[in-house]
């Protein structure tokens, strides 16, 4: 707790800078990543992040300094070249996009490692620290580096803000964009450039290898929470910023912990959480919904069975043994025990010794389901001209779906019927 307060009071200026820097970098990667994600170009980020390495090395070899602006220029150029190479391969040869991606990534990264190794063994004293680009070092985000990378992150964000509507259209329907006269080639070049820039700045924090996660994970997680691109950008940014703060905090509170990898860890946890729990799309939520439907079906089917047994005996509130319910309609033993227990708990049936008896509410509910079942059977035979012996199965499902409003309309349409196609009485509404 103390560490937490100490951290967020930003007593040490260095912490402030590092946090500020990581947040800015994360947001710019997250925003750009949304576009690579919806354009289904997720792997492009991975290629570019690996392909900037030779650029950084060549830039260093040529200038002999670690001036961040020079390194960024080198990184930017070689990142761009990798994209051009990838496009050229797919367009002019029989090699498909996946193979071209793999080729570009490994060849550029290979050259990068080669140059890096050469520099490390060249005895150049100023080379130390260049390898931070491999694995990233957010804690090094101070002074002139911080300034350089922040400027670029801001440029990236401003460009996306200005071209939001155009980027959206070329991502969704490039042909239409071209026909209405948008300069799509130039827009693609701008979008690619900000992608490369976001990667170049991001690797400062997390390194070449983890960079793809910074681009894609916030977007993928955000996609679970919204169906609108504008909201997706905001949510992805929040996820990115949160991962930046968390990463910085974890590495601050535990000295041996690196910032970058923790940022990626936090993002991954957010993505996993979204995957399981996001409303509408999350797996757990969907399973839960399915489970609830199953339970509703079981309960309503049981009540309907109670009602029908009562109907045939002309006594709805007689005691019924569990076995007799199983005889009237097939339930598994497990279903019977579980369903009856639940109905009992909800007050729809009462337990009397070894037998069960409907309560008033249980009777009403069973009656309504039976009624809907028969109304639907009648509707199917009358309006869909389905033979009376073919309508039961369908009605068994639909009876659980029909709302009171639909029930009224159905009734009206069928002119308040009293008997279903099998001449069973349609119970009246209460």
């Amino acid at each position: 707790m103390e560490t937490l307060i100490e951290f967020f009071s930003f007593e040490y200026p260095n912490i402030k800078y590092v946090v500020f820097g990581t947040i800015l970098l994360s947001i710019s990667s997250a925003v750009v990543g949304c576009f690579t994600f919806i354009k289904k170009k997720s792997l492009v980020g991975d290629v570019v992040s690996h392909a900037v390495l030779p650029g950084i090395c060549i830039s260093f070899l040529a200038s002999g300094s670690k001036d961040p602006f020079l390194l960024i220029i080198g990184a930017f150029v070689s990142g761009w070249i990798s994209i051009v190479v990838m496009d050229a391969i797919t367009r002019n040869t029989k090699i498909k996009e996946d193979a071209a991606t793999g080729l570009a990534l490994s060849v550029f990264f290979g050259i990068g490692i080669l140059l890096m190794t050469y520099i490390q063994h060249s005895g150049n004293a100023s080379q130390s620290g260049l390898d931070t680009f491999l694995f990233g070092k957010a804690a090094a985000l101070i002074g002139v580096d911080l300034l350089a990378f922040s400027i670029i992150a801001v440029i990236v964000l401003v460009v996306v803000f200005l071209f939001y509507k155009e980027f959206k259209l070329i991502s969704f329907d490039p042909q239409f964009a071209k026909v209405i006269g948008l300069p799509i080639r130039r827009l693609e070049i701008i979008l690619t450039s900000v992608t490369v820039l976001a990667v170049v700045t991001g690797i400062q924090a997390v390194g070449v290898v983890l960079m793809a996660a910074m681009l894609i994970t916030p977007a993928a997680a955000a996609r679970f929470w919204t169906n609108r691109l504008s909201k997706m950008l905001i949510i992805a940014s929040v996820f990115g910023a949160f991962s930046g703060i968390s990463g910085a905090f974890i590495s601050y509170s535990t000295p041996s912990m690196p910032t970058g990898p923790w940022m990626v860890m936090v993002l991954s946890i957010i993505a996993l959480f979204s995957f399981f729990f996001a409303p509408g799309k999350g797996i757990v939520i969907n399973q839960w919904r399915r489970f609830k439907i199953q339970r509703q079906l079981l309960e309503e089917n049981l009540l309907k069975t109670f009602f029908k047994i009562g109907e045939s005996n002309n006594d709805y509130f007689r005691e019924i043994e569990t076995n007799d319910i199983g005889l009237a309609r097939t339930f598994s033993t497990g279903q019977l025990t579980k369903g009856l227990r639940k109905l009992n708990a909800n007050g729809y049936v009462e337990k009397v010794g070894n037998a069960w008896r409907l309560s008033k509410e249980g009777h009403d509910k069973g009656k309504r389901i039976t009624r809907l079942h028969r109304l639907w059977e009648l509707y199917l035979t009358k309006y869909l001209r389905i033979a009376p012996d073919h309508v039961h199965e369908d009605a068994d499902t639909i009876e659980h779906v029909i709302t009171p409003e639909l029930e009224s309309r159905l009734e009206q349409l069928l002119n308040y019927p009293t008997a279903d196609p099998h001449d069973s009485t349609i119970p009246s509404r209460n």
Partner: protein
Amino acid sequence: MIHHVENPALEIHDLTVSYDKKPVLWGVDLTIPNGALCGIIGPNGAGKSTLIKSIMDLIPLNSGYVKIFDKELDEIRKKISYVPQRESVDWDFPASVLDVVMMGRYSQLGLFKRLRKADRDAALSALEMVGMEKYAKRQIAQLSGGQQQRVFLARALTQNPEIYFLDEPFAGVDAATEKAIIQILKNLSEEGKTIIAVHHDLQSVETYFNWVIMLNLRLVASGPTSEVFTPQFLEETYGGKLTLLSEVGELVKERGFHAREKQ
């Protein structure tokens, strides 16, 4: 038979187009009158969509030119609307129906400008025209094929163009949607707009269109429906394929020739 007109809405002159280096349209030369409701028909692989796409400059031409209202495409883009094939986009894209329809307004807005209230109004009234106003907020992935097609048509309507190009607007849509769409197109045509649509169903050609372009790798006929939609031209369009023509096309591709010699 190729029926030429004076002051055409669309003029295609000596157009040859290759796809993947194989010529798929040979020497198409035609004119369409202003206000026509025109169907492009022909068998699968006849080059119907290719024709639309080359008019829209989405595919490079080997030879020839296209003029719309006697102007180059670039001079007149704001008067043109294009409805691509429904399958050409990913409907899982994170956007609402209204988002997509408002894309039709981008060309009037220009770069950097944000969407205005008026654009929203235009989109909503276009949605109303296609009977989709209730779905404005709906995520596009939740639409049926027919509804997706209506959304695309609504997007085109917001542009208020003089000429519409529709690529298979009736493909995979329900009967109600087809009826609704053709009614809208007929209304537009009565207002004097020109409409050119790729069409598949021969049964409905005569009731839908007053002008027909019949294609099968080359132009078979172009003219008023009553004159060219005849058994003779149908036989020529759908009957025996011109096997010689497609074989020569294959050869051009194999040997790496250009469909037209560079000058």
